[in-house]
């Protein structure tokens, strides 16, 4: 059966830092971008609703 963590040599710390950094940067970017898009869409909706109210 596959081990939960791979058995790495003396450089394991360097490898885990790289993978952790990758997960953090890429994961953080995905979350940030999706939130930004949601905020932009909500702002447009608010603006359109306000426009209709004004009319």
């Amino acid at each position, binding site marked *: 059966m*596959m*081990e939960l963590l*791979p058995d*790495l*040599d*003396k*450089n*394991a710390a*360097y*490898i885990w*830092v*790289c*993978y952790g*950094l*990758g997960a953090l*940067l*890429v994961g953080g*970017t*995905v979350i940030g*971008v*999706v939130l*930004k*898009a949601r*905020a*932009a*869409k909500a*702002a*447009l909706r608010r*603006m*359109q609703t*306000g*426009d209709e109210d*004004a009319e």
Partner: protein
Amino acid sequence: MGMLSAFANPHRFLALSNWLAPLFYGVGAAMIAWGLWQGLWVVPKDDYQGGDIMRVMFIHVPAAWLAMASYSGMAAASFIWFIWRHELADIAAKAIAPLGAVWTALCLATGSIWGKPTWGTWWQWDDARMMSVLFLFFLFLGYMALRAAMDSRQKAARAGAILAMVGALNVPLIKFSVDMFTSLHQDASVITVDGPKMAAVYLWPLMMNGLGHMLLFGGLVMTLMRAEIWTRRAARQRARLLAGA
């Protein structure tokens, strides 16, 4: 050019990206997960490449590919805007910049971490590969700062496009820096004239990771472009409301 114009319609782009972006996220994430699982658990360590540390390759190399590809994409989009003034091309260039900066930062950081146990140093200031990638990172930051400093959208697009196109000269310099100059960095082993020099057991997970990163990146670019289109529409709406008030 006709096909390009058809896709340059923001309304059509919103409809297309509505299903294409989630598809890119899903397939990209699955490919990256498979590639990383192979890279960490399955492929044997390569004692010729320093043992297990070569597993950093599955993060570092896709990040390096994306850094160069994203800048090339930003420069191409800038060129299209500069010649044909397609608004969507400017939106694409603007969307690529922060994402390109993130992947370039990842490339620099993982390369530096890989370098310490392999070369005995985190960084070499006179190394052409390292410095040209660092310059690429500053080009992304400079592009964003330049756009932000302009007082109109047209000026921002024009100044950004010129910088992106001129800075594109750095991309071939990065690619061939290891051939033209003495470098700690190893020679190209995947994208070469004679084909990949890497064993298939490493090449497949690497290619899957690379393709996965490209799809994920593509999905992110589309999402940021959608956000920018909505932001510009909201701004136009606001201007219309103010004009009518």
